C-alpha cells in the first residue's frame, strides 16, 4: 500500500475529446488502473460551474482524503462518481469502469453521501435488509456489519430513535454491506463523539489493510492528516493539489522559532541565522525563520545551538514548529473557509 510518489498521468490516449462524456476503456485498465480517475470532469448548472475540468487520480489501496472549502464541488464530484449526476463534460472511471456504466462498478463500491439516509419507521436492521435485498447481498451479513460499527444490540430499534452518531454508524454499516473494494465516504465522522472518531479512523485503516481503497471527504483536516496517505484538494471545482500526503506536508511551512536573553542580543542571533541562509523576521522577542528547502533540519538546529553557545548567547527558545495540514491547506487556498 505504497502510493506513487508523483502524480503520473496515465492513459493519455484515452483522454476524451472536448465535450464528450465517455471514452473507450483501454485494455487492461480494469485490472491495473487507479481506483478513481477523471479527465476534465465537468458539471454545470446553467451558468454556474460546480466542477470544472477535474483531473483526479486515486491509486488503488490508499486512503485518500478529498478536501476543499464548502461549495468547492466535492459532493457533486462524489455524486458523479456514483452515477447520481450526469457529467456535463469529461470522462471518468471507477475501478476501471467508465462512469457511464456505473452498474458495472457500483456493486464493488460502498458509499455514504452527505447525511445518512434511511427510512425512519424501519429498524436499523430492516433498513439494511432493504439495501441488501436491492443489491442482491446476503442479509446474513447484516449482524456482522452492525457489530463492526458498534451497533450490535441496537439493530432492532427504529431508525428514528437513533442518535446522530448512531445514524452515522448505520450509514457506515450500509456502506460496508457489500464488502466493497472501494469505499466513498462524505464526512463520515459527522456527529461522532471522540471515541467514535477514533473508531472510524481504526475502521478506515482496517478496511485499507484488507486491500480496500477509501476515498473520504472531510473538513476535519487533523483526521485527514492522521489517516490519509493520499490527498485530493479542490477549490471552486478545480484541482488544487493531488498526491501523497507527505508530498504536501514536506518542506514549506516548517518554522524555526528562536529567542535569547537579553532581547537586545536578538540582532546577533539574527546574524547567526542569516549565516545559515535563513531569512528571519522579528515578532516581539522572538525570531521566526522559514525552513523551506532545508534538507536536514535537525543538523541545522544543532549547529545554530552550538554557534550561539560559542558566541555566548543565552538561548531561551530554539524550536521547530511543524506545519500541519490546516496550514498547508490554507496556503493552497488563501482565505478558504473551513466549516
Amino acid at each position, binding site marked *: 500500500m505504497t502510493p506513487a510518489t508523483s502524480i503520473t498521468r496515465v492513459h493519455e490516449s484515452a483522454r476524451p475529446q472536448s465535450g464528450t462524456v465517455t471514452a473507450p476503456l483501454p485494455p487492461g485498465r480494469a485490472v491495473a488502473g487507479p481506483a478513481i480517475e477523471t479527465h476534465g470532469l465537468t458539471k454545470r448548472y446553467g451558468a454556474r460551474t460546480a466542477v470544472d475540468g477535474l483531473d483526479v487520480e486515486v491509486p488503488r489501496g490508499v486512503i485518500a482524503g478529498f478536501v476543499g472549502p464548502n461549495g468547492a464541488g466535492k459532493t457533486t464530484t462524489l455524486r458523479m462518481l456514483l452515477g447520481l449526476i450526469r457529467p456535463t463534460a469529461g470522462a471518468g472511471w471507477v475501478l476501471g469502469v467508465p462512469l457511464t456504466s456505473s452498474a458495472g462498478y457500483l456493486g464493488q463500491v460502498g*458509499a455514504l453521501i452527505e447525511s445518512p*439516509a434511511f427510512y425512519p*419507521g424501519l429498524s436499523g436492521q430492516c433498513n439494511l435488509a432493504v439495501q441488501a435485498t436491492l*443489491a*442482491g447481498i446476503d442479509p446474513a451479513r447484516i449482524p456482522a456489519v452492525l457489530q463492526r460499527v458498534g451497533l450490535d444490540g441496537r439493530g432492532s430499534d427504529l431508525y428514528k430513535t437513533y442518535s446522530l452518531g448512531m445514524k452515522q454508524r448505520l450509514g457506515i454499516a450500509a456502506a460496508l454491506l457489500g464488502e466493497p473494494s472501494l469505499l466513498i465516504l462524505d464526512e463520515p465522522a459527522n456527529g461522532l463523539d471522540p471515541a467514535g472518531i477514533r473508531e472510524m479512523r481504526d475502521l478506515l485503516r482496517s478496511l485499507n489493510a484488507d486491500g480496500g481503497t477509501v476515498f473520504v471527504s472531510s473538513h476535519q483536516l487533523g483526521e485527514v492528516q492522521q489517516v490519509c496517505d493520499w490527498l485530493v484538494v479542490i477549490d471552486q471545482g478545480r484541482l488544487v493539489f493531488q498526491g501523497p500526503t507527505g508530498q504536501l506536508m514536506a518542506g514549506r511551512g516548517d518554522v524555526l522559532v528562536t529567542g535569547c536573553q537579553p532581547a537586545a542580543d536578538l540582532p546577533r542571533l539574527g546574524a547567526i541565522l542569516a549565516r545559515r541562509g535563513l531569512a528571519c523576521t522579528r515578532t516581539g522577542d522572538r525570531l521566526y525563520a522559514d525552513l523551506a528547502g532545508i534538507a536536514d533540519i535537525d543538523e541545522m538546529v544543532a549547529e545554530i545551538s552550538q554557534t550561539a553557545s560559542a558566541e555566548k548567547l543565552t538561548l531561551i527558545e530554539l524550536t521547530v514548529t511543524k506545519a500541519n495540514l490546516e496550514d498547508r491547506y490554507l496556503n493552497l487556498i488563501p482565505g478558504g473557509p473551513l466549516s
Partner: protein
Amino acid sequence: MIRSFRSELLKLRRPSVIFGGGAVLAGFTVLATVLTFTTATATGKAAQNGRYATSTFAGLAGANGLTRGFANAAGLLGILVFVLFLTSMTSEYSHGTLRVLLTRQPRRARLLGGKFLALVAVAAAAMVAALLLSAAVAIPLAHSRGIATNGWFTVGGLGHLASNYANALLAVVFFGTAGFALAVLLRSTVLALGVGLAWLLPLENIVQNSWAGSGHWLPGLLFGAVGRGGTNIVSYQVALALALAYCAIALTVASVSFLRRDVTA
C-alpha cells in the same frame, strides 16, 4: 427488477403503512358499504349528471349485490391508493433514500419498475381485504333491511364478485399510477399531493357539474367509471381504453424523467 420489487415490499411492511393505511381502507370500505345499503329504497333514485344512482332493494338482492358496496368504495379507495403510490415515491426524495437506492440498483428502469409493481401488489392485496370486509359488512346489513341474499352465493354471484374486484383493482391502480407519475415529476410530497388532490377532488367535480361530457375525458372520472363497471355517461370499454391511455402516457413521461434527471436529493 425482482430485487427492487422485494426490497420495496420490505419497506411497505412498516407499521405506518399497515396500520394507518389499513385503518383508512377499512373506514372507506365500511362507509361505502353502509351507505350503499342504508340509502337503498324500493324504487331507487335516478343518477344525475353522472353521479351514483342509489340502489334498489331488487338490485341489491341480485347476483352482484354482495359487492355493490365494494364497487362504490372504489373511488374512495382510489384516492387512498393514489396517496400511497405518491408518498412512497416522494418520500424517497424527502428522506434522501433515493440516492442510496440508486447506488444499490443503478439501473433506474429496473428500480422504478420493481417499485411500481410492488405497489400494485400491495394494492391488489389491500383490495382483497377491502372486498372481504365489504362482504362481511354487507351480509348483516342486507338481513337488517330485509334484502334477500340467495342470489349472491351462486355461480353468477361469484362471477360478479371476480369482475367487480378486477374493475375496482384496475381503478385504484389507475389512481395510483397518476400519483406515482406526479411524484416522479414533482419530487415533493406537498406539491404533488396538492396538485393531485386538487385536480381529482374539487376541480374535476366543478368541471363535471358545468360540463356534462366531462365524464368522457377527465381522468379521475374515467378511473372511477372503470371501478363501477361503467356509468350512464361513459361505457366501461371506453372508460377502460381512455384510462389505460392516460396511464401509459403518465408512466412514459415519468419514466423518461426518472431515467434522465440528476438525483440531487
